[in-house]
């Protein structure tokens, strides 16, 4: 429809290029700016393979993998949030609704407890942490708790409301257990888990990016498959089924995609879940009535918000950088309030 004009007045065909330009801009800004004041010339030469070893290490081994991990995680959180908000018809849904972040938190906590802290009961010793194991462990926990919630809701008829109620109940229990375990620890050990809990891109390497990449690609590859069902899942079940949709099957597929995206992202960077809540709202606001734009905008904005949020956290905090989870939450609340003013 040519007459569809999004809310901000730009013709819809300009929105995506504009958003893509924003991605590039934030990407470039994130490479050139940082705690270490690296001249632009040094950054450029590091990117082309020459330049000093120090500059190369900062750009190629610290900044770039961190940015790429952030972009992938941001896309995944935002997409997971959009899918969940759409199928549960709940504008406040985010990946924590499916217990993903709580389950991941609990598994990571348990994992650290059993592998490190029980073996080294001295509460002030700083241990070598099995960092590489955290992403798969967190993801596993997220998927398992998502699965438990799904099975519970399925037995009760799998309505959006049932999913929401089961999710809140199970999520609260898992969260309480994790917090209880953390509270029982000595003070010096809490720091690591707190860092992870607040959601951080600190010290993310190419390993993290490579861990995420297959999930990002798989999620994007699923989009053509769930694109039309997503339209229909916005109706109540009777209407969607009358239009010819196998409601339960398609609901489950979308839910699985959402959980997979969210759980792997939580595993890699911790629960930066606010991105999953905020970005879909922002995308819907920009797309206005032109719904087909919402999906691509969500993906693009997810990447932008996380990249910029992390940049702000790095630059504003100095050496004591502010975790991305904190930045997005602080930035996100006013945005959410502003957007919610539009809701009748």
């Amino acid at each position: 429809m040519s007459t569809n004009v999004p809310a901000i007045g730009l013709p819809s065909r300009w929105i995506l290029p504009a958003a893509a330009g924003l991605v590039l801009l934030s990407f470039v800004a994130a490479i050139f700016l940082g705690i270490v004041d690296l001249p632009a010339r040094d950054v450029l030469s590091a990117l082309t393979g020459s330049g000093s070893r120090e500059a190369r290490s900062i750009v190629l081994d610290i900044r770039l993998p961190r940015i790429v991990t952030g972009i992938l995680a941001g896309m995944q959180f935002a997409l997971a949030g959009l899918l969940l908000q759409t199928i549960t018809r709940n504008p406040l849904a985010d990946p924590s609704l499916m217990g993903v972040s709580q389950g991941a938190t609990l598994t990571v906590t348990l994992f650290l407890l059993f592998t490190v802290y029980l073996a080294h009961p001295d509460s002030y010793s700083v241990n070598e942490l099995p960092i590489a194991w955290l992403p798969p462990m967190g993801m596993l926990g997220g998927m398992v708790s998502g699965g438990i919630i799904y099975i519970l809701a399925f037995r009760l008829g799998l309505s959006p409301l049932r999913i929401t109620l089961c999710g809140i109940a199970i999520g609260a229990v898992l969260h309480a257990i994790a917090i209880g375990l953390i509270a029982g620890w000595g003070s010096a050990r809490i720091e690591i888990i707190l860092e992870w809990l607040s959601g951080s891109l600190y010290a993310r390497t190419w390993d993290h990016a490579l861990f995420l990449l297959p999930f990002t690609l798989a999620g994007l590859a699923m989009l053509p498959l769930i694109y039309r069902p997503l339209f229909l899942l916005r109706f109540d079940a009777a209407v969607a089924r009358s239009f010819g949709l196998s409601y339960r099957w398609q609901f489950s597929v979308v839910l699985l995609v959402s959980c997979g995206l969210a759980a792997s992202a939580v595993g890699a960077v911790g629960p930066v879940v606010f991105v999953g809540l905020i970005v879909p709202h922002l995308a819907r606001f920009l797309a206005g009535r032109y719904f087909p734009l919402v999906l691509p905008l969500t993906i693009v904005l997810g990447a932008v918000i996380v990249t910029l949020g992390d940049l702000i956290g790095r630059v504003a905090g100095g050496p004591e950088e502010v975790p991305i989870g904190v930045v997005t939450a602080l930035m996100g609340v006013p945005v959410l309030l502003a957007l919610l003013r539009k809701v009748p």
Partner: protein
Amino acid sequence: MPLTCSQLSVLYGRRKALSGFSLSMEKGEVRALIGPNGSGKSTALQALAGLIAPSQGRAEIEGVAVAAMSRRAIAKKLAFLPQQPVAPEEMTVAQLVRQGRFPHVGLFRSYGRKDEEAIEWALESTGLAGLADRTLQELSGGERQRAWISAALAQEAAILLLDEPTSFLDIGYQVEVLDLVHRLSRERGVTILMAIHDINQAIAVSDRISLLEKGELRFDGEPARLAESGLVEKTFRVRGTFVEVAPGKPPHFDVELTKLRRPAS
């Protein structure tokens, strides 16, 4: 026979919402489903559309059991418009009506010319061509109702089930919807079953009427015979008479408003 069911029973927990309901519709027939609130009209429609599983009996589309068909296969042959359907407020009329083509295009096939024509026809038939780009929240209750009817029409199904399609419409749009129903059946041979509250409209528009009471079929036949049977007065607990308005025209049920009469003081 496009649509039949025999001995259809539906249980809600322990309550029997429908018991032993039978129906057999001819091609192009308009059938009204009437009965008091809670008599099982919506339940019957949903069971026929395969949306709820009956505890007994079965519904058939062209001789094939509905329970054995996929949702898409059903939607190609049967369009069902529930009572007060819910859609996202920011959805436009055109986007809603396009969803009616899902059974035809499926997950991947792109919208062809036939699909666009069906959408256009559905919008025009409901007088919504000029409102296609409005969002649903910008519409009046009557326009919204017509948008949903339009989406059901876009399915181009040979069977149309409507659950109280005229409620919330003013008398002008009520007549328009009933006229559309009549035209669809006569010009396109669409078989139409609709739950409806207004007995006079039911009598005026339908070829046959089914009367439900407490989940059981009390009457199945032509409108004129319903008028003679005295069942309407009994089932709805009212007093009234069927009066002939004009020769050859369906009778009009004139209800006595006895319950409104103030007691003599």
